[in-house]
């Protein structure tokens, strides 16, 4: 009996722990979960210190968010009367409900951060050249979709934080030239935040955007394979070309005088060699499993230690003071609060300049960067290549500026959005709700 169970286990799991190179190779063909990997991958792309496996970490967070999100859907009611109560139920009446919500919340905030850091890694390694430019653009769209998923999820608890963050957010959308008011009307399902808004954000959050992200994620992965793998292999290839092996002239080539110098065979050998590659199973599959488990446990740990915030029930007639956006949008809030320009009677609203035009410009530059990059291709797939020093500095400065704005917004802004230094007493403001 025990032997039979052992045999059955071996029969279903051998693909994950192949005992020979032959089994490694067959695993990719015979296992559904492994079949989307190539049989072999570049050894260099398995390096922890090159990619930090941030893309895998992002995908792990997406999976965690999908599973915990579907669990939350069993309890959440998208109605203005019952939404807040169902979150309270999750916290106090459902076994482990608070844990599920906490994990969903921290995984969501983690995903915004990890996806951005993943993008920064791709930037600092110059890994968006040639056909990989398409995947860079797909990645930018995925980052935006991640932000929009966070934004739509923010409204669902229907607490004060949610209500006023969405008030500010949709008012920014209204400032877009020409189509702004229509976009706001369409997002809200009316002129003010109400039942229609909640339902629309719910459908966007639990169906439309997740499907979009999963489809784009699949395309993102497919493109990685079509582009030949991570950009680090271009570095390996470049090294191979720079140091061609000194092979003797082959007899026929020199006899017929077809080519001077080395033979054609060696010069065309720009591809990866046998020694540069390892089998996907188990080398890649085990690393992916490890990254997933680490990410899962980190979010679980955060969920056990920290509770997701929940303020009082949404009250359209009382604005909390100060009303802050979630941290990943606070830098935008800083911008909309400080970019109103007045020239005589002519006023440009900060919501247009700081909320639409400036982020729009940043986004356009970010998207177009692969076509703006004129550095030599030898900089590809290398961390902080000297040839790209100025580009890397630009990206780092922009990131730093955003981080500083976030820090100012989160830690230094007090009542009425005034600046208070740490430790400086802040005036008591009545909490009216």
């Amino acid at each position, binding site marked *: 009996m025990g032997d039979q169970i052992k045999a059955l286990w071996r029969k279903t799991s051998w693909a994950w722990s192949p005992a020979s190179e032959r089994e490694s190779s067959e695993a990719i063909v015979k296992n559904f979960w492994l079949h989307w990997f190539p049989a072999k991958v570049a050894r260099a792309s398995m390096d922890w210190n090159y990619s930090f496996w941030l893309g895998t970490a992002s995908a792990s967070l997406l999976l965690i968010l999908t599973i915990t999100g579907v669990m939350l859907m069993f309890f959440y009611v998208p109605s203005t009367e019952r939404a807040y109560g169902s979150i309270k139920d999750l916290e106090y009446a459902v076994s482990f409900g608070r844990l599920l919500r906490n994990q969903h919340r921290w995984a969501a905030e983690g995903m915004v951060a990890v996806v951005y850091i993943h993008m920064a890694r791709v930037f600092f390694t110059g890994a968006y050249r040639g056909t990989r430019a398409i995947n860079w653009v797909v990645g930018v769209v995925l980052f935006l979709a991640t932000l929009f998923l966070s934004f739509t999820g923010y409204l669902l608890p229907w607490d004060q934080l949610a209500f006023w963050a969405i*008030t*500010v957010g949709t008012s920014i959308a209204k400032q877009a030239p020409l189509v702004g008011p229509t976009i706001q009307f369409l997002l809200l*399902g*009316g002129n003010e935040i109400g039942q229609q808004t909640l339902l629309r954000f719910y459908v966007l959050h639990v169906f439309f955007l997740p499907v979009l992200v999963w489809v784009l994620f699949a395309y993102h992965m497919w493109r990685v394979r079509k582009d030949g793998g991570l950009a680090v292999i271009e570095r390996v290839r470049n090294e191979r070309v720079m140091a061609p092996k000194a092979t003797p002239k082959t007899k026929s080539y020199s006899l017929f005088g077809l080519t001077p110098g080395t033979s054609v065979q060696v010069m065309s050998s720009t591809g990866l060699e046998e020694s540069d590659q390892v089998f996907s199973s188990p080398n890649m599959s085990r690393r992916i499993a490890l990254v997933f488990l680490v990410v899962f446990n980190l979010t679980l740990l955060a969920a056990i230690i920290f509770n997701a915030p929940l303020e009082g029930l949404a009250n359209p*007639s009382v604005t*909390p003071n100060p009303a802050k956006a979630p941290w990943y949008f606070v830098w935008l809030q800083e911008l909309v*609060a400080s970019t109103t320009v007045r020239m005589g009677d002519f006023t440009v609203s900060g919501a247009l300049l700081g909320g639409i035009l400036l982020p729009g410009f940043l986004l356009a530059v970010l998207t177009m960067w692969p076509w703006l990059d004129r550095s030599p291709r030898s900089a590809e797939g290398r961390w902080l290549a000297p040839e790209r020093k100025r580009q890397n500095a630009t990206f780092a400065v922009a990131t730093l500026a955003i981080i500083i704005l976030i820090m100012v917004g989160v830690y230094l802004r007090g009542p009425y959005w005034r600046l208070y230094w740490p430790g400086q007493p802040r005036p008591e403001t009545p909490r009216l709700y």
Partner: protein
Amino acid sequence: MDSDRRKVLRFIGKGSVLAAFLAQIGAAGRALFPNVLYEPPSRFKLKRPDDYPDGYTLDEAHRLYVIRQKDAFHVISAICTHLGCNVQWRDTEFDCPCHGSRFRPDGTVISGPAPGPLDWFSTTVSPDGFLEVDSAKDVARDFQLIIGANGKA
């Protein structure tokens, strides 16, 4: 001749199916624009004029301030013109908690990101003696509703 007719018929056939397909996508998009809004009307009654003390009184439900100076009344919107938060009256000025806009007692901007002054709403007395506001109607910045001893404007 015969083939030309077929071409036309084929064009009509394929074209109509395609047109129906596109029209249905358009219809689905149009459905997202609501025709009926279950929102409060822009014209509504407040309390009786005598229920308001002198000075600035916040009406939370309607998000506006009723300002009384003896017999003179006017109503200013509490919705910040920047991004729609509720401004708060702080004895000498309105302050917005979201992005720090500041307004004078008449609703014009002192500083901050707000692009324009707070709305000043058309106000009347209804036949049954209540203050009545039309938030869709903006009035001049010196508008005052003077109410006589008989309770009529």
